[in-house]
């Protein structure tokens, strides 16, 4: 209401500058309804602004969330890459089985997390240059899910082979996982090599 009053006082000042009596009367008469109208108008404007700001804030928060999502999944993939190297070394030499057991556990765990790493809106459509996640992830979710399911199954097979100390089986499972899991997904859903 303070806004309305201030307005009123401005009218008063103007009134005094002109014809005191008429101006005063007119100000008095107009003060009530016009102040309310102005207040309503101001209020709806403020509400709309707040709403817009809220939406913008939410969008920013979501974008921040997605930026974090992108950063997290890239870190997760990189970490898995390190473990993959350990497994590859095992398939080639047969040495350090214990390390391979530890490494494949991470790969198996990661394979289970991956479905949560790609919320809609976190692809290169919104984050061009920051992520290589192709829109196909969300336009063909069935294929995406199926590829991840294959990856999960292959990772589990690999885990069993490493646990059993079967180097030949581990090599075969590792190659299958690379081809049908990692490679298939990167081939269909990642925009760079």
């Amino acid at each position, binding site marked *: 209401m303070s806004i309305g009053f201030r307005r009123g006082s401005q009218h008063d000042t103007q009134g005094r500058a002109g014809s005191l009596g008429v101006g005063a009367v007119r100000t008095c008469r107009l003060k009530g309804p016009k102040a309310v109208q102005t207040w309503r108008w101001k209020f709806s404007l403020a509400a709309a602004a707040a709403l817009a700001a809220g939406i913008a804030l939410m969008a920013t928060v979501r974008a921040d969330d997605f930026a974090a999502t992108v950063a997290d999944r890239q870190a997760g*993939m990189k970490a898995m890459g*390190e*473990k993959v190297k350990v497994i590859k070394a095992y398939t080639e030499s047969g040495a350090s089985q214990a390390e391979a057991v530890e490494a494949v556990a991470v790969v198996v765990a990661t394979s289970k997390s991956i479905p949560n790493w790609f919320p809609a809106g976190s692809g290169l459509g919104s984050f061009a240059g920051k992520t290589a996640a192709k829109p196909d992830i969300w336009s063909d979710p069935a294929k995406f899910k199926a590829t991840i399911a294959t990856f999960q199954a292959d990772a589990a097979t690999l885990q069993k082979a490493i646990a059993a100390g079967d180097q030949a089986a581990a090599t075969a499972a590792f190659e299958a996982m*690379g081809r049908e899991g*990692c*490679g298939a997904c990167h081939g*269909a859903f990642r925009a760079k*090599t």
Partner: protein
Amino acid sequence: MRYPASALLLAVALIFSGRAVAAEATAAAVARGAYLFSAADCASCHTDSKNGGAPLGGGRALKTPFGTFFTPNISADREHGIGGWSDEQFIRAFRKGVSPDGRDYYPAFPYTSFTGMTDRDLLDIKAYIFSQPAVPTANRPHDLSFPYNIRWALLPWKILYFREGPFMGDASRSMEWNRGAYLVKAVAHCGECHSPRNALGAIEKSRRLAGAWNGPDGMNPPNITQHPNALGKWSTSDIESLLKDGITPDGDFVGSGMKDVVANTAKLTDADRHAIATFLKALPAKEPTPKPATASR
């Protein structure tokens, strides 16, 4: 009368054994051709696998800065494929980039590399293709933008940019290096994707294998020279692992177009993968192709 009878028998035996030898030769050619067909990565372009197309049936869309190419049917179908081609026509297509009816091919068909292949390798590929099922899929015309849709312009293009000729080895290098050079430069035509092209679609020689922006289907094939940020820090066995399993030294697995290539290089012998790696490791380092302002990413 005994002699003519045995002579006849001998003649018949000779004819049959001749046929058997011919059949054996064909089988060997088909097997060699199948191998080279993988090495040359033919199926990646000439099979529309994304839309469930039949092998060799063509129809795959190849989006380029010049427009969209639709790869032709290269199956042995006489009407839509290459079933009616003679050996000479087949060799001419690869060596000179000219179709049986005398039209010049767009260099989207990498005859610019295939020109270095030997007659025997080409004819073995033909033998393999002709041993495969014919696919009755009609070809789809290319959808190219002006001025690239002017086909006769390919003649001056060829005069400017195309050098016909067999692959020339280097006697001062090892057998491995020479085999690798033949595979990389001619058969596997690595440079066709991993090199930048000028506005007329010709490879920029100084940046051959130094990577490309705006490659086919918006891909950005990387620098594969010995630059420290390219393959400089990779060992030969790192390169061999990539060609066999698609795995990079940092535990990543390649995707994009290279995934299809790896599906084929995985079928090569260890010796050939080693030869490719040997050749690539001997390449001079080149700065990566700078990203143009118009690059897709």
